[in-house]
């Protein structure tokens, strides 16, 4: 006798932690006769170093992210002064031992501004990643499971997706005052269509999996199926997507601030510092380059983390990209 739940439990599914861990062998592999040498399980190195060895992208990206996070958290204790303190007497000083990154045209210390700017960038990046993921998950789950809603929701998403994200965020920012909260809302809005599209496509393929049929046959109600069987399986691709959303949000925030549609000038964000250095950049390039370097390294860290997670969580994708 073979009850359906057993099939459901052993059905290999793309994003389950078992395949994600990499080390665990599937039952089907274990019974295959005469494994070629290549497929024999290699004793993995243990501990943190082993993990870093197997996933260098996660290790490097994670370490850089952690460093940036610590910088943002402990900005007041890292030899900074008030990032908004004006001192016209010592404006546009070149980088020196007193002003590590120099001062801007209002005499503000760029080192302090850049360090405090990390707070804005990370706040925007993380908030947008979380908010867009939650909203995208809800919309994608509804669209993927309720056929009547799918058509309308996806047409709306198609329409919003055909507006280039930066322009969409710019248009929304033009409506409101510049504030960190508004920037987060505008960028989240611009990111939602892509996330919900991804969730919907994952849901549509999961729906056809035998374990969902099994749950339906066992009489599980639809909300429970979504919660217990669909949602957990969307988490791996969502995590990867969230890191890309985070990276994109950081870039868009900097761009918005750079063109004057982002955080208000009183908030030291990397985009703002660069916008203020724009007029002088040919003679004082350091004003632009220090925030630019921090921004690039942070986004690189998030992207590396995303690539690493993708390879670790979804080995099929890893081969393709």
């Amino acid at each position, binding site marked *: 006798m073979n009850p359906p739940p057993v099939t459901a439990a052993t059905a290999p599914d793309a994003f389950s932690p078992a395949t994600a861990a990499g080390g665990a062998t599937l039952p089907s592999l274990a019974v295959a006769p005469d494994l070629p040498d290549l497929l024999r399980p290699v004793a993995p190195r243990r501990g943190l170093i082993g993990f870093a060895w197997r996933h260098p992208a996660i290790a490097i990206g994670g370490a850089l992210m952690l460093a940036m996070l610590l910088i943002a958290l402990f900005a007041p204790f890292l030899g900074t002064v008030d990032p908004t303190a004006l001192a016209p007497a010592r404006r546009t000083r070149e980088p020196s031992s007193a002003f590590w990154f120099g001062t801007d045209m209002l005499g503000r210390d760029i080192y302090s501004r850049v360090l405090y700017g990390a707070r804005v960038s990370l706040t925007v990046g993380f908030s947008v990643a979380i908010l867009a993921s939650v909203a995208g998950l809800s919309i994608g789950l509804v669209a993927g499971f309720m056929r009547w809603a799918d058509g309308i929701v996806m*047409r*709306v998403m*198609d*329409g*919003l997706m*055909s*507006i*280039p*994200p*930066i*322009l*969409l965020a*710019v*248009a*929304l*920012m*033009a*409506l*409101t005052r510049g504030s960190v909260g508004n920037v987060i809302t505008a960028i989240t809005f611009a990111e939602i269509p892509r996330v919900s599209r991804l969730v919907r496509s994952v849901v549509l393929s999961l729906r056809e999996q035998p374990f969902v049929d099994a749950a339906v046959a066992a009489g599980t109600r639809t909300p429970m199926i979504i919660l217990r069987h669909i949602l957990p399986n969307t988490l791996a691709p969502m995590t990867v997507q969230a890191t890309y959303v985070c*990276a994109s949000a950081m*870039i868009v925030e*900097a*761009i918005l601030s*750079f*063109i*004057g*549609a982002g955080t208000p000038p009183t908030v030291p964000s990397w985009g703002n510092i*660069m916008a203020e250095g*724009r007029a002088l*950049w*040919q003679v004082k*390039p350091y004003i*632009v*380059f220090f925030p*630019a*370097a921090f*921004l*690039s390294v942070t*986004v*690189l860290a*998030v*992207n*590396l983390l995303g*690539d690493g997670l993708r390879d670790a969580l979804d080995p099929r994708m890893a*081969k*393709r*990209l």
Partner: protein
Amino acid sequence: MLTYIIRRILATIPVMAVVALFVFSLLYIAPGDPAAVIAGDQATPDDVARIRASLGLDRPFLIRFGEWSWQILHGDLGTSIFTNLPVAAMIAVPIEPTLSLMAVTLAFAVLVAVPIGVVAAWQADTLIDRAIMAFAVLGFSVPVFVIGYVLAYVFALQLDWLPVQGYTPFAEGVAPWIEHLILPALALGCVYIALIARTTRAAMLEVLQQDYIRTARAKGIGQAGLLFVHALKNAAVPIVTVIGIGMALLIGGAVVTETVFAIPGIGRLTVDAILRRDYPVIQGVVLLFSFVYVVVNLAVDLTYTVLDPRIRY
């Protein structure tokens, strides 16, 4: 085939309708009452109400949306709040620099990205492949204005090879025109190259595993012919698709690139419009670029049958 083309064109109508609805709502919920602005400081509430009625601002949302859409379909994008000029005319002036920048970037990016993607797939898992993919991650991560400043600093300020900023119209000669576009196109192209190269590599890897490639190899075809004629043809559909989707990056990036290189294009117009809260101009720009994006992706869809004769509708 013809029915497919017609159906595909019709399918863009709801998409553009959503865009139009969004863009219209923008003005609808924008802070500030145009009637009060026109009436001036001395106006009584009655005056404002009268002006509002004469402008038709007191009518329901959907009726106003319908009328506005009708105007748009006739090429009337409204009037700028700031300059009182028609938005369509204001957009027409700086369109040349923006189109030039995007065209040069597109051509350059495709010419660079496809070959390096092919090479990365051919040399998969070697040092060359790793280097190309590392470059792709960098291209995704370093924002366009950062690349722009670095390039301008190195090649214009330090080496003095190319102009730092500005734009020369095409009519004044090809050489100065392209000279001013090289650095902006390089900066704008990086993220696009990264995107296309990654997709090309992925598509090629899949194609190179197929049996007909082995057959072609056995037949004695040269490596270049095999990669660029036999394999690339079959990898074309995803590559062309991502070129179309990537247009969104190009459009958004153009706004920023123009700011860095002081190119008097649509990006400059947009930035000025944001600072002045000139909503009709922002609406016009969003509408125009979204339309371009939709049309490009429609064209991409329609090329599928040419690229892959197996696709039949």
